[in-house]
C-alpha cells in the first residue's frame, strides 16, 4: 500500500518552513500522498525518511530496461490488472531461445532466421525482440563463444541463460555493453549472480521454486542492494504459470507487495509451434513481461504478434492515421477516388487492396476520430451530411477532372445524401476491402 498523508507527515521535519512551496508540512504530505508533489521539494527530509518515502511512493511495479543503445526493451511499470481500467504500457518481449550446443555455422544460420522474422500488416512492423542463448553445453568457453557469435550477428536484445556465476561472468563480459538480461539467480547462486549483475550493471532474472521462495529470494537480493530484477516463479505448466503471474501482478498492484513489484519472465514448453504460440498467448494476455520461445514458425508468430499488438493498444485511443488525401501510385487527373475512414486498421487494409489493383488511385482518409467505417457511420461521423460538404470544398476537386467517388459497400445508404451535398457521383464499392481487386477489374478495367 502507498502511505497515507498522515503517515508521510510523521516522517517530515514538521517545521512548517514553507520552502517546499506549501504552507505546512501537513499540506505537503497530503499532496505527496496524492502524487501531486515531489519529495525533492523539501530540502530537510532525513535520509531514513527519504528512503522510506521513496519506497512508498515508488510505482507498484518497477520499470526494467534490457539492452542498450537503439535496442532497449522496457518492461514492467504496469499499473492495472485489466486493460479496460486504463491500458497496458509495455508489450511482452518475445524472445527466441538458441542453444550453445549448436555449431558456429548452425548458430549463425539460426540467428539469421530470427533476424528475418519480420512481419508487416496494416502498416505496422512486428519483429522478435531478442535472442536468449542457453548454456546447454555446460562449458564456459563454448557459452562465451556462442554469445559472441550471436551478438555479432544481431543487434537484438540478449538474454544469457546459465546458472553458473563463473560461466555467466565470462559470457557477460563479452556483451557487457549490450546490457543483457542475466538468467538466473537462484537460491544456490544468488550472492555471486548479484555480484556479476552489479559488475556489468545488467538486469538480473530471479527464479524461485515457488512464489514464497521467489519472494524470499527477492528480499535477499534487494538486501544486497540490487533492484534491477525480473521474476520467475519457476513454474512451467500453463495454468499454473497463469495463476502465478496473476498473483505476482495482483500483489504488486493491489497490495503493493514489494518483492513482487518487478516484471516477469516466462518460458514456453510446447514443442509444436502452433501449440507453443497458444501457450505464449496466455502469458501475453495475462501479465508475462517476457516470453522465451523456441520455434520460429512464421504463421504461428504472426498471430502471436498480432494478439500482442491488440492487447497492448490503448483502449481509449484508436490508432488513427492523419486524415487527408493519399495518392497511391503515379496518380493522374483521371485516377479513381476512393474514400474510407482514418482508423488505421481500416485505412491500411483498404490501402493494401487498392495497391493490389495496380491502378494509381486516390484514397481519402476521412476524419472519423479513428473509427472504423460502420462504427463511424453508426456514430454519425461517416455520413453524407459530414462527408458531402467536406468533399465539395476539398482539394481533391483540383486534383482530378472527374467527379466520381467510390464508397465502402457497408455504407451504401449514404449514397443519396452524399451525392446531393457534394455534387459528386457516388459509386458503391464492395463491402469488404478484399473485394476491391475484383471490383476494380470489373468497374475500372484493371
Amino acid at each position, binding site marked *: 500500500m502507498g502511505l497515507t498523508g498522515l503517515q508521510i507527515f510523521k516522517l517530515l521535519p514538521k517545521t512548517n518552513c514553507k520552502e517546499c512551496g506549501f504552507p505546512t508540512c501537513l499540506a505537503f504530505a497530503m499532496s505527496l500522498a496524492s502524487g501531486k508533489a515531489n519529495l525533492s521539494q523539501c530540502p530537510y527530509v532525513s535520509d531514513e525518511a527519504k528512503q522510506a518515502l521513496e519506497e512508498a511512493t515508488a510505482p507498484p511495479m518497477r520499470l526494467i530496461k534490457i539492452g542498450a543503445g537503439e535496442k532497449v526493451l522496457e518492461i514492467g511499470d504496469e499499473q492495472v490488472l485489466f486493460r479496460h481500467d486504463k491500458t497496458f504500457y509495455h508489450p511482452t518481449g518475445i524472445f527466441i531461445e538458441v542453444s550453445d550446443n549448436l555449431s558456429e555455422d548452425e548458430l549463425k544460420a539460426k540467428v539469421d532466421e530470427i533476424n528475418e522474422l519480420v512481419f*508487416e500488416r496494416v502498416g505496422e512492423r512486428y519483429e522478435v525482440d531478442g535472442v536468449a542463448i542457453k548454456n546447454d553445453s555446460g562449458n564456459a568457453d563454448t557459452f562465451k563463444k556462442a554469445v559472441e557469435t550471436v551478438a555479432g550477428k544481431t543487434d537484438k536484445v540478449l538474454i544469457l541463460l546459465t546458472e553458473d556465476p563463473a560461466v555467466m561472468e565470462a559470457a557477460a563480459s563479452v556483451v557487457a555493453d549490450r546490457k543483457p538480461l542475466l538468467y538466473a539467480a537462484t537460491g544456490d547462486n544468488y550472492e555471486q549472480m548479484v555480484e556479476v549483475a552489479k559488475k556489468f550493471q545488467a538486469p538480473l532474472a530471479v527464479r524461485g521454486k515457488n512464489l514464497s521462495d521467489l519472494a524470499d529470494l527477492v528480499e535477499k537480493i534487494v538486501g544486497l542492494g540490487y533492484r534491477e530484477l525480473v521474476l520467475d516463479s519457476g513454474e512451467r505448466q500453463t495454468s499454473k504459470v497463469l495463476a502465478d503471474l496473476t498473483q505476482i501482478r495482483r500483489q504488486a498492484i493491489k497490495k503493493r507487495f514489494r518483492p513482487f513489484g518487478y516484471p516477469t519472465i516466462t518460458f514456453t514448453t510446447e514443442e509444436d509451434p502452433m501449440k507453443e504460440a*497458444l501457450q505464449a498467448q496466455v502469458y501475453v494476455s495475462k501479465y508475462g513481461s517476457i516470453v522465451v520461445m523456441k520455434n520460429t514458425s512464421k504463421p504461428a508468430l504472426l498471430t502471436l504478434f498480432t494478439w500482442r499488438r491488440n492487447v497492448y493498444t490503448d483502449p481509449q485511443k484508436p490508432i488513427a492515421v492523419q486524415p487527408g488525401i493519399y495518392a497511391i501510385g503515379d496518380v493522374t487527373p483521371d485516377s479513381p477516388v476512393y474514400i474510407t475512414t482514418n482508423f488505421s486498421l481500416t485505412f491500411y487494409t483498404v490501402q493494401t487492396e487498392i495497391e493490389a489493383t495496380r491502378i494509381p488511385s486516390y484514397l481519402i482518409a476521412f476524419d472519423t476520430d479513428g473509427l472504423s467505417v460502420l462504427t463511424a457511420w453508426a456514430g454519425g461521423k461517416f455520413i453524407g451530411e459530414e462527408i458531402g460538404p467536406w468533399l465539395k470544398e476539398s482539394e481533391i476537386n483540383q486534383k482530378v477532372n472527374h467527379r466520381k467517388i467510390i464508397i465502402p459497400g457497408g455504407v451504401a445508404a449514404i449514397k443519396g445524401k452524399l451525392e446531393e451535398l457534394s455534387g459528386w457521383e457516388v459509386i458503391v464499392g464492395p463491402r469488404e476491402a478484399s473485394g476491391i481487386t475484383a471490383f476494380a477489374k470489373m468497374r475500372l478495367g484493371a
Partner: protein
Amino acid sequence: MPVEIFKEKYTGKVQEVVLGATKEEGGTRAYTVKLGGSSALPFLQFEGESARPVIAMEVWDIKPNWHECFEPYIGDVWEDPVAWAQKLEQEYGAEVIYLTLKGADPERENPKSADDCAKLVKKILENTKAPLMVEGCGNYEKDNEVLQAVAEAAAGENIALGMAEKDNYRSIAAACMMGKHCIIARSPVDINIMKQLNIMILDMGVPADKIINDPLASGLGYGIEYSYSIMERARYGALVGDKMMAFPIVCLAGQEAWRAKEAVAPDDAGPGWGDQKTRGIMWEAMTAAALIQGGADIVLLRHPEAAKLIKEHIEDLMVPNTY
C-alpha cells in the same frame, strides 16, 4: 516468508445454462453440456470454480463458401448437413453442433422454407448425439417463421436458438419459451445493450437459465481487443454480483477469424506471413484462445485443426492451479 495468496472474494457467479436434453430429460441427446457456472476469473481455479469452455463446430444448411483449405476435411460432406454434423461429432471432437440456416435467406435464389429448415433440424437431431444450437439466416421477418418452426420440431431437445437482437428478440424469445429452448442474445460489442437485452428477454418470461449471450466478438487483428475487454468487464461484473452481465458467453470465433485477410491470403502473401494453411488455422485458434482468456464459455470453431488445437489448449488451462 510464505506468500499469502491473494484471493478476491466474489459474491456472484456466472449463470449456469444446460444445453441439450437426454432421454430422461425428455430429449434424445447422448449427453448435455453445462455452460457457465464460473465463480472465478477464467482459469483462476485458486479462487473459485472456472467452468471448462465448450467447443461447438459449425454446419451450414447449404454448401459453404469457405476457403479451399477446408476441402480435405469436410469437402465430402459439405453438401449434406446431416453427414457433416455427424463427421464433426465423430471425427473432429465437436461437443456441440452449431447449425446456421443460411439457405433460408430470402435474398438467395430458391430460399429454403421454414418447413425445410424444421425438417433438416429434425433429421440432424435424429442422426447425431450432441446438443444443438441453431442460428437463423439473419433476415428478421424470415427468422420469425423459421425459428418458430425449428423450435417446434426440436421440442424437448433443449436446443439454443438465435440470433435474438434488440429489434427481433420477441418472436425468438416466444419460440424458445414455447419449445423450452435456450436463447442466444446478441449485442454489438456493447455491454449496456447486452444488459438491456437480457432484461427485456427476462421480462418476456424466458428463465435465466436459458439465456446465452453473444457479444459479437471480433476476430484477431480486427477489433478483438474491444471484445476481449468487454468480456473481461462482463465476467468481472458477474462475479461482483451484476446478474445482467452473468450469462454464459458464446463467441463465433471461426467465422470472424476467416474473414481476415491474414487467414486466407495465399502462401507468403505478406512479408513474413508464412504458409496460408497454418496461418488460417492459427488465425482461428489464436482468436478463440484469446476470447477464451477473456471469458468465453463456448467457442464456435470452423476448422477441425483449429478445434483440435483449442481442445488441447483448454486441457492445459484446466490443470488445477489451486495453491
